[in-house]
């Protein structure tokens, strides 16, 4: 699935957070009693930023729903190559929260639908290894013939 920038995701089964989900584009941390915290906009490379808490949800399905909705909002509104750590700061976590959690602009149904459609249309790109999508897709060099030699 295409997105404006790469997305690094992590999920942690307990608040000790071994998978470092707080510093991922999207991270989910189990905090007990079936609850999950969802963090967005984190980074831990040349740019370091702790993710913002988007919301706390009550079930695994809700984690997928809300984080998917965030990803779709990011896909539709981020600039090309803009990572979530810049996007979240530019738009503001309060606004993102209002839109994807509280549905303040009534966009949630459309976001969910668009994400489902993209997911359904996603193909395994590794299949192109056997059936290249375009001619010479994996050729690094094509040999030309010298006209004088003919």
């Amino acid at each position, binding site marked *: 699935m295409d997105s404006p920038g790469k997305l690094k995701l992590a999920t942690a089964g307990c608040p000790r957070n071994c998978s470092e989900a707080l510093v991922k584009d999207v991270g989910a941390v189990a905090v007990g009693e079936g609850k999950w915290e969802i963090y967005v906009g984190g980074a831990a490379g040349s740019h370091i930023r702790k993710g913002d808490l988007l919301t706390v949800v009550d079930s695994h399905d809700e984690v997928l729903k809300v984080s998917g909705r965030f990803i779709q909002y990011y896909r539709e509104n981020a600039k090309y190559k803009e990572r979530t750590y810049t996007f979240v700061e530019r738009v503001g976590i309060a606004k993102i929260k209002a839109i994807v959690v509280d549905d303040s602009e009534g966009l949630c149904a459309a976001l969910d639908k668009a994400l489902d459609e993209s997911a359904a249309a996603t193909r395994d790109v590794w299949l192109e290894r056997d059936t290249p999508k*375009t*001619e*010479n*897709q994996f*050729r*690094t*060099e*094509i*040999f*030309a*013939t*010298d*006209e*004088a030699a*003919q």
Partner: protein
Amino acid sequence: MSRKYKLGLASQIPAGEGRTFKAGETEVAVFRTRNDEIFATQTKCPHKGGPLADGLVGNKHLICPLHELRFDLTTGQAIGSDACITVYSVVREATGELTVELPGD
């Protein structure tokens, strides 16, 4: 004296992409734009040697995949920079066969 090399059919370069060709000892990056125009340039970016054939092509412009230097494919002049790349002339026959002309070696 210049030397001509046959590259084969234009169709072996997907529209909007580029491919590297080896013509004698010289490597040439050949691009086919989405408007079906053909351009040929040197293969390496003068900035850090990026593989230009893997760059993004749009509207007669080429963007190097490494650091996004932009070039005008018609002149080889970089946009927003003093750098420039060598461009070669390519002729397309009615059959779709491409021939590139390289300066004497």
